Each structure stands twice: as structure tokens, then as C-alpha cells.
């Protein structure tokens, strides 16, 4: 398995765990929803070109 493939999976985990508490705080103002979504990860994950 490519190192880059693994990297983004781990990063996705970190990113979402960081964003969840922040998004929860943002919801207190009224009836609102924050939706985090992904699709087509296809097992083999490439790093995002910078």
C-alpha cells in the first residue's frame, strides 16, 4: 500500500476530529446543521495536489 494512500486516511481522521468540536459550537445560534461529507475514497487515497 502506498505511503501517500495511508497518509490521507490518517489526515482525514485528524481533520474531522478537529473540526467536530468547532462545528458543534457553531450550531448553538439556532436551528442549523453542519454536514461533513465524503465520497469516492476508493480505497486508494491520493494526497491533494498543493
Amino acid at each position, binding site marked *: 500500500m502506498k505511503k501517500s494512500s495511508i497518509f490521507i486516511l490518517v489526515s482525514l481522521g485528524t481533520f474531522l476530529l478537529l473540526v467536530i468540536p468547532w462545528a458543534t459550537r457553531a450550531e448553538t445560534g439556532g436551528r442549523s446543521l*453542519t454536514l461533513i461529507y*465524503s465520497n469516492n475514497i476508493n480505497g486508494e487515497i491520493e494526497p491533494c495536489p498543493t
Partner: protein
Amino acid sequence: MLVLDSGDLLFKKFIAPLPDYELREASEKARLIIEAFNFIHYDAFGIGDDDLTLGKDFLVDLSKKATFPFLSSNLYDVESGKPLFQPYLVKEVKGLRIGIFSLLSPDLFRPDDPRIKGLEVKPPVEVASTLVKELQSKSDLIILLSHLGYPKDMELAQVLAGIHIIVGGHTGVNLLNPPVIKNSILLQTPSKGMYVGRLDLQLRYPGSSFYNVTTKQTLERNLINVQKRIASRNVTEAEKLQWQKTREGFEKQLEQLKERNEFSNTILPLTEQVKDHPEIAKRVEAFKARAIEASKPPIPKRQSP
């Protein structure tokens, strides 16, 4: 807050059944992804065609290891005549009841496709019509995890009212500025996990349509510029008349946004600057070590002299 995936998660794009020597690594990788998703606290995963690469039994076994439901509303087990997975989920988030269901396109499979052995993919629009009616009485907001492909997501939004958000998959198009068709917002991110999407929705007018906050901001900026033009001394009366008509157009468009629900959408790149999550990283390292070990050729036995 909801965290959702709309399919083609576990395996590479299906071309042909995997050879035996790839089966072990592919199945271990799929388990690792589900373990990582458990850590991330995903709320639901909608089945895509490529998730069936190792067949229904593997996927059913894998679903038992997940802390979130695998959803598919139109994928049926031929033998039992029942849905293979939970057809929908109603989740309450801060008092908002959210109905989530998932559809898979039957057009993604050839008649002899080994991935759907023992399975039937029922017509998605018919299934959606029935489910939306059912979910309307149980929820305030309906989300579809769609594995129909982007063109069919657009068609579905045209013909079927009641789905507020369609999180699309399979096509992997970048919908940074999501289209709003009738009363449905269409979402999707590019493929291979390079990005993750984030939608923030304000629900002030239940039953009303939606608009993107950037559309409103653009109209407001345009209106300010037009007003400056009208107030300028350097415009002729004929030009002023044209600008006034333009201003009326922008004002009318802004008026139409009133009593609609506002949303903003971001597609976030997952670059190498994003730090690793330690628990997932630990499991990934263990997986890599096993993969390296498995790829080593067997040590030949020494022959005694």
C-alpha cells in the same frame, strides 16, 4: 453535526474480480478504513457499486465491525427478499430530526456482474418516492446518500420533491458551488479522498428552498457597484437608465432569496499539512508492517550437507 459518506469507499474502481493474491490486502485495507471511520464517528455510509467488489457476504460481515450503519434502500438480498442493509436512518441532531436514506444505480452493473451475485438493485426512483413519503412524517430534513451518479441526481431532484440534500457519489465531481434544483441541494467532492466537503445550513423557513450565501454576497456587491455608477457624475441619462434597470434586476433577485434557507459550502483539501491522528496512524503503521511482511518471498530451507 453529521458525518456521512456516499459510497465507493472501500476498494479501487472495479474492473474485474480481484486475483487471489490481492484478496487479503484488499480485505484488510477495507477493515482498516472502517476502523478509521469508527474513530472519526461517521454517522452513516451509503453503499456504492465498488463497495461490493468482495461480494455481499464480505460487506455484511464488515458492517458488523462498524459503529455506524451501512445504508442502502434499494439493494435487496434475493434469497431472503429483504434489504441487504438498513434502508434508512432517522437521527436527531439538536432537536432536528434528519432522515437519511441511500440509493444505488442498477445501471452500474452488467447483467453478469459478479458483484451483485445474489442481489437485486430495485428501481431507485420508485424506492425513493415511497421512502420520501415515509420519512416526511418522521423527519424535518431528508438527506439522500446517492450512488446514482451526478446526471441522475439532477434528474431525481427535478422529478421528486422532498429531498433537501443529495450527497452524491460515483461521479466524483467537484461541486464547490452546489446547484440547487427545485428544493434540493446537490453535493459531491472530487474522488480519491483528496477533499472533504462541509455544508453549513441555517433552517429558518421549513419547507422553503435554499440559496448559497456566496450568491447573496455577489448580488449585494453588484448592487453597491451599480448604485455607485448611478450616483456618478460621469454617466449620461441613457446610461443611468440602463444602470437603474440593472439595479432593479439585482434587487428583484435579492428579494427572491428572502424566506429561503441559507447555506454555505466548502470543499477542503486534505494536503500533507494536515496532521496525522495518532490512533489511526498507529493502526495504519501496523497494517503497513503486515503488508510488507506478507510481500517478502519465503526464506528457502537450508539443505543439509
